């Protein structure tokens, strides 16, 4: 899978900007475990993709693909190019009425192929005042479909403070992505229990100091 020069330049530019401008870094990134990974994070802005992606070591970055809504990313040529070429996003149809393929299956296929995914379990960008929206059940179904996959909770710190809703200029702040312990759906665990456990793990990362 060789990338064209504009794609490489865009990737390098995004990573360099994120690193330089936001002094972005990973906190407690768990070492690779051999199993495919679902990186699960809070979602407040489009920069979240870039943030999570930039803090990964380069060799893992190239095999980590964000899962994103096709309705948004298929809307223009530029968005399509960014989604398909730059991020190699896994686009899923979020509308259950119109979709022709099962999103869980689409993402599971990527994981089976040995690649990692970035997944925003809130299902959409959180533009409210609450820290975390109630998690959608997609992550539970995905975890059940690929039981060997590790779910790694992550929290993107400060990115929401850089450009709050309605603000015009971004204010540079130091950002970081904090990772938690990998988890899996336990045998017999119900959907509600799992989603509660996952959102608690994510919120715990948000509260942690240092």
């Amino acid at each position, binding site marked *: 899978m060789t990338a064209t020069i504009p794609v490489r330049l865009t990737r390098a530019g995004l990573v360099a900007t994120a690193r330089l401008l936001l*002094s972005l870094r990973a906190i407690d990134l768990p070492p690779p475990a051999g199993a495919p990974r679902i990186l699960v994070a809070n979602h407040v802005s489009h920069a979240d993709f870039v943030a999570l992606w930039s803090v990964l070591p380069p060799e893992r970055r190239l095999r980590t693909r964000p899962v994103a809504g096709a309705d948004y990313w298929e809307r223009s040529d530029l968005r399509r190019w960014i989604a398909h070429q730059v991020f190699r996003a896994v686009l899923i149809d979020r509308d259950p009425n119109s979709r022709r393929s099962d999103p869980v299956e689409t993402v599971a296929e990527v994981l089976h192929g040995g690649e990692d995914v970035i997944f925003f379990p809130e299902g959409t960008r959180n533009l409210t005042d609450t820290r975390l929206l109630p998690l959608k059940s997609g992550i539970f179904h995905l975890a059940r479909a690929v039981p060997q996959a590790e779910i790694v909770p992550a929290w993107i710190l400060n990115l929401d*403070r850089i450009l*709050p809703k309605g*603000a015009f*200029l971004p204010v540079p*702040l*130091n950002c970081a992505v904090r990772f938690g312990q990998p988890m899996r759906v336990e045998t017999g665990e119900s959907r509600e229990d799992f989603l509660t456990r996952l959102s608690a793990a994510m919120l715990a990362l948000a509260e942690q100091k240092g």
Partner: protein
Amino acid sequence: MERFHSPSAFFFYGLFAFLLLASLVARLLIRSGRVKGEMAQNLADRIRAWWVMIGVLALIFTLGAGAITLFFALCSMAALREFATITHTRRDDHDGLAIAFYAVLPLQYLLVYFEVPVFAALLIPVYCFLLLPVVTVMKGEVQGFLTRVSETQWALMVCVYCVSHIPAILTLDIPGYPYSAFTLVAWLILVVQASDVLQYVWGKALGRHLLAPRVSPSKTVEGLVGGVLSASALGVALAPFTPFGWWQAGLIALTVTTFGFLGGLIMSAIKRDRGVKDWGTLVQGHGGILDRLDSLVFSAPIFLHILAWGWL
């Protein structure tokens, strides 16, 4: 070619020679296994960061006053970012912070560079103090108001106002002094930073009595006394390149290193209160840029005032 023969150039030659020696000694210590593990890594990181920092300083000193001013403006930017990150500021403070970053900071350095000392002295302590809270109060959010506006004001004072005093020294023209003010900036940075390093070294070697255990677990009485005295001795040794007599150089070095120490202590208290160990991760092995600049922040204004009142 004069800039390669100036006293500040020779300070840098000396520093590079010293760094070379330090690198060799560190390598020997690590190879012989006397320093190992995390400590060895930290030592190697710190020395590498010193090479970069001194290299960059040598380069900007060669390029001239514009480069030095721009460099410290960038330092202010990075420092302000670190400071703003740990404040309680929220959505309603966003405009105030944006003004601080994009208007106040550049303006302060322009005032310094184009030598408008009166406004450079008043912009942040008076006009920002009066006007930035106005921007915030317009948002109508009162919760934590005093905390939030004070934090923004502190961030500007520490990261922009105080840091801008370093390049401001370049604008001084001291009658009868044969060298340029570059030498004075180099002297200040050298003495204050040497004091930091020497406090660390003396503290590691002899430190027994913790100075302020609740504020900083690493600052000791032995480290403070040893560091401040030996750095002041260095300041005295370099007195022939300054407009100061021997005893004056000693007293001034003692003053700036003491203020440098107090600055480190104050900044430690802020970090402790906000639950962080370092200000950031910009300087490998050292933490953030504020971890490296904290002592200069509190000593540069004092040094500038000593020069302005005593030697102009």
